[in-house]
């Protein structure tokens, strides 16, 4: 007990950190085979860092799962392997064998690309290893159907989300009970905003993919997005030469689908400054969300993370 004038004021980041750690420990205590979905982006970086804090001095007692599409940026694969080594965690890389066989790619297959590599790939991986709980780095401030999702989000045996019938979630009491075959997606950083994430990365010195910082990179224009030509699989138009531009990314995914922003921000504070002064949302750089107004909700119902 302390006297009223000796109390400590926790900052909002300290409160968010404590909440996330609490959530992760609940999952480990109450589920049989948890896994952490690791997409190598900034949110995954924060989530992994929080997991290391939650279980220290033990390493986090679950593996990392990267549902790979073979089309991520090279720099992402590098950081992924390095982080797995440093955290002492097992890294499972899963590629949907059917997508591999058919050579599914973002140029020829459109929406099928996300569908097969990511949505189907994820379902297959979870089934194959029998994971009954999967941590995801989604945040409620990202998108309007995410804003509606519980921290512990239930999936039927065929991975469907029923947004109209979510379990009540009171205080910090999470109900992790489920029938055989059902699973839960858990979002430990639900209540973090994009700014919180950046600020935390800054304060805690968390390693992130260098693509988040501005640099001269080869680019082309596609459908109004500035795309970085990351390898020679990219089909250039006849005579087209990528233009060198100082760019960076607010969000990272498959390189042919991720739009860059022109920027000279080379340090975290500069990146944050740009983010705060910008007038568009981070999701604008993703091709996937533009399809239709409620597209994310639909994708999620079908099993997309």
């Amino acid at each position, binding site marked *: 007990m302390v006297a009223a004038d000796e109390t400590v004021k926790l*900052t909002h980041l300290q409160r968010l950190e404590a909440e996330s750690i*609490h959530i992760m420990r609940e999952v480990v205590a109450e589920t049989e085979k948890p896994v952490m979905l690791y997409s190598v982006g900034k949110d995954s970086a924060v989530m992994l860092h929080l997991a290391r804090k939650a279980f220290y001095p033990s390493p986090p007692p679950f593996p990392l799962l990267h549902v790979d599409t073979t089309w991520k940026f090279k720099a992402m694969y590098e950081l992924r392997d390095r982080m797995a080594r440093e955290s002492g965690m097992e890294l499972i890389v899963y590629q949907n064998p059917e997508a591999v066989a058919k050579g599914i790619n973002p140029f020829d297959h459109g929406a099928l690309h996300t569908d097969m590599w990511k949505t189907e790939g994820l379902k297959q991986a979870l089934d194959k290893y029998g994971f009954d709980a999967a941590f995801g780095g989604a945040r409620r401030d990202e998108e309007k*159907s995410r804003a509606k999702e519980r921290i512990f989000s239930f999936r039927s045996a065929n991975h469907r989300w029923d947004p*109209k019938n979510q379990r009540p979630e*009171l205080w910090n009491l999470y109900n992790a*009970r489920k029938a055989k075959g059902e699973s839960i997606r858990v979002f430990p950083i639900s209540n973090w905003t994009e700014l919180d994430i950046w600020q935390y990365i800054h304060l805690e010195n968390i390693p992130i993919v260098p693509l988040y910082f501005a640099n001269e990179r080869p680019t082309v224009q596609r459908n109004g997005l500035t795309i970085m030509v990351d390898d020679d699989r990219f089909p250039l138009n006849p005579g087209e030469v990528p233009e060198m531009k100082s760019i960076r990314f607010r969000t990272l995914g498959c390189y042919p689908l991720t739009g860059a922003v022109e920027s000279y921000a080379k340090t975290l504070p500069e990146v944050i400054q740009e983010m705060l002064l910008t007038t*568009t949302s981070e999701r604008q750089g993703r091709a996937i969300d533009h399809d239709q107004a409620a597209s994310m909700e639909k994708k999620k119902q079908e099993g997309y993370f």
Partner: protein
Amino acid sequence: MTDMKAQESSYKTDELIARDIDAYLLKHQHKSLLRFITCGSVDDGKSTLIGRLLYDSKMIFEDQLAALEADSKRVGTQGQNIDFALLVDGLAAEREQGITIDVAYRFFSTENRKFIVADTPGHEQYTRNMITGASTADLAVILIDARKGVLTQTRRHSYLVNLIGIRNVVLAVNKMDLVGYDQDKYEEIVADYAKFAESIGIKAFTPMPISGFMGDNITTKSANMPWYQGPTLMAHLETVELDVAADQVRPFRMPVQWVNRPNLDFRGFSGLIASGVVKPGDAVRVLPSGKTSTVTRIVTLDGDLQQAVAGQSITLCFADEIDCSRGDVITLADAPVQVADQFEATIVWMADEALTPGRAYWLKIGTQTVSASIHAPKYQVNVNTLEHMAAKTLELNAIGVTNIATDRPIPFEAYEQNRTLGGFIVIDKMTNATVGAGMIHFALRRSQNVHWQALDTSRETHANLKNQKPAVLWFTGLSGAGKSTIANLVEKKLVRMNRHTFLLDGDNVRHGLNKDLGFTEADRIENIRRVGEVAKLMTDAGLIVITAFISPFRSEREMVRQMMQPGEFVEIFIDTKLADAEARDVKGLYKKARAGELKNFTGIDSPYEAPENPEIQIDTSKITPEQAADLIIERLIP
């Protein structure tokens, strides 16, 4: 929206961002956090208000605004104008119907504070979602449509807000634009609400006249209501005093979430501190065991801490190797919490299927999940009149007061003192759904005073004397499945092996101990509970108990399993097809049931829930009773 430009807010982007980002970050890092909800009746304008707050605090990006404008024209409720509710009502079903179904969490910040706002649905049908949002809020904005005044849902939500323990209440009288910004109307509603608020124990609230749609008194003072002298909603949210450290000045309590054991040299106890402060050197007590030790270290990845406070997630190490595991509560040694197994509590029921008094449910409180049965309510509260009404059960959205018995003593505090140790959720054992939420008032006297008599002759002594391990062989299956036949054979064989047994079945129990019980669902549950308790006493006496009851409900069998020592309950499923049992019909009961002469007959007009993971399963169409008995013995005494 005709005059949106004219209403531009005063919340300009912080100029510090552009000038000195490092200074801005330092400031942002030390912002305080306010979590609040909007609640009230259907269509009072909750979602619109939040959309407006987000818009005015510049949280809407250009691409989102363009989408909002397009959506407003397509599915909005305001014709060609912007429908701010669409910023929050994110589910397809919500946009189609123009209502809120589930809570949306949105975020914004101003110079001094960060806000997490939960927009809750007004519809009575979705009350459980409103409670979800309310349970983590520090402040509630209760909206009223100025044209309609205080409605039933306004009362229900106010009651829940107070019950959950939110002490900061704003009464926002909304849609003032539709009543000509009339002061009298406003005063009338405030006076009306004040009467109700007082009657339910809301001690204070801050009223304000607003229009979420037009932006009056949201971030700028309304020119339409010069008669209003108070702050704007945003100004109030920014400055309202938060008692953030209240938890720290109470004694130390931490429910253990997880035991951290990376190697033989380290054993730590991880948890989120519920109240108080802890420092190395503090004497602590672990409950319910009561064992004491001293804190040696507070371990974190960033190095050991010299102190940790309520709200932090930490790992503690002790000086002694004492027993401590998930579900236990670590407290200051000289200020422990109470331990009890019977409580009075308020329960809010949240499932379509009504509460079944007497049935075993899971109860999760802190980090502990126990089996518990909820008694028939003492009364239900009518949220309109606040009358206490007699009730046999609690239906969806009902609020009632009842006694609860847990299957083992648990550490707790009254909800009023400590949300973490006094708030619980109720989970259905069959569907795993969260069906209720509760708040403990106090422990019942009888549970505090009836201490377990420490018996000198222990159950081990009894068992050793008989040279056996006690067990309950619980036969379950349809009427006529062959339970009694096989159970009898098993007992005979065990006796021949010099084992001490006792067989409980319908005949020797229904005629005596349970002769006051019939065959309704409630009576069947009670029947099984009593059989379970008797079987438990018999295992304490060292016996191998054999029971043969239809015991059709999974949750009751689970309840009995929980009563026993781990590993002592052996569920034996005598698996006979209904058609086969009915064809045998030794006692002619199926015939009677089919003729409608017997009510609630399992398999006919009452369900049989087959075990999902029985220890032993016997398919009577494949083996004889003799073979079945041998198989069971073989599994028991390998």
